[in-house]
């Protein structure tokens, strides 16, 4: 990332090739249209190119940062299309500056975690999985979800809490968030 910050386009290509696949997969999952997903990914990577100096290596990986930017861009796109005011989640600036060996180990761990969470997400009760997908992949607020499903806001929040708690437990570090 230091090279990207210095304006090294070849280093940027490496970053793009490493992270564009998951970024596009997320964008497509959120918007369901290839053209819009490509626009979102392009905007996200241009943002990375322009703002690489804002990395804070203590806040996580480039993968996490890129995906968060994509997520926020997709929500912005929803808002543009639907003319709906919505919470604008600012990007969280994170960095990777790990030696290659550590990065590889990190990637293996990430893939393992992803498999665990995918399995856990599939295993959630449908009502809990639904609120997670609407909130994260759909970009809806809890109030919008409650309206759409005809549920009290507290019920939607409670399902989100239960679901996230179970997903967190699936990552292998149970925490006391599930009553």
């Amino acid at each position, binding site marked *: 990332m230091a090279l990207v910050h210095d304006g090294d386009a070849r280093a940027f290509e490496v970053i793009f090739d490493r992270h564009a696949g998951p970024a596009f997969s997320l964008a497509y999952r959120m918007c369901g249209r290839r053209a819009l997903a490509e626009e979102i990914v392009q905007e996200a990577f241009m943002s990375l190119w322009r703002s690489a100096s804002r990395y804070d290596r203590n806040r996580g990986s480039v993968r996490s940062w890129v995906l968060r930017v994509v997520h926020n861009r997709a929500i912005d796109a929803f808002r543009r299309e639907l003319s709906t005011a919505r919470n604008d989640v600012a990007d969280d600036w994170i960095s990777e500056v790990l030696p290659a060996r550590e990065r590889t180990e990190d990637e293996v761990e990430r893939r393992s975690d992803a498999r665990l969470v995918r399995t856990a997400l599939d295993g959630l009760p449908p009502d809990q999985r639904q609120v997670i997908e609407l909130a994260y992949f759909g970009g809806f607020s*809890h109030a919008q979800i409650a309206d759409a499903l005809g549920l009290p806001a507290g019920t939607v929040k409670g399902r989100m809490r239960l679901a996230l708690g179970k997903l967190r437990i699936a990552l292998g570090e149970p925490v006391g968030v599930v009553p």
Partner: protein
Amino acid sequence: MSGPDPTARPRDCGNDSAPYVLGALEPAEARAFAGHMQSCAVCRDEVAALAPVLDVLPSCAPRRDVSPALRRRVIRAVRSEPKASSVGRRRPRLPPWMPWRPVVAVALAVTLLVAVTVGVVVAGGSGGSPARVIPASVGRAQLHIAGGHGELIVEHLPPAPPGRVYELWLQRRGRRPAPSTLFAVTSRGTAVLGVPGDMTEIAGVLVTVEPSGGTRAPTTRAVIVARA
């Protein structure tokens, strides 16, 4: 008398932690919860415990391949857009007989009006670059314009008051400011947002603090004013 118990929960705040992590609270709720966490160790710990799920949740999306055309477009755009940071480093190497060149470059890019000057970032474009960087005010704010698209980057901006939200306005020549988008800042005072709409005819941008949901015309004095 002892101090306040950091584990005490004055209300049923636990239900807000998951929607907060998911970004599913309304802006005013998110700000209130962020403020609440400063005094509630239980909620703070719960948010910290749930946050790692967000790092792997995107991987639940079915895998899709990136088209070669997208890769070409992005790489081409990057190669045609010199970075502001590298442009800045080149400035000291300008020949002494051209001291006016950076001034002209910045002047071509922006003329800035500062509403509340706390710190100004000067990161002007270079001649021939399709990108413009408009430095603004209040903490640090920059508007990047490239290829007709804009992106606003804000740092060190205080949270909008409860029940209020930041609203971005676009101003075109001879017209009143048009509402663009609403945004909140993180607990660290940062925000990065794409500016919807065509930026090629943009004459300036404003940011005001407005009631949640936004307004159709500015009702408060701008905290950020930048004129191109």
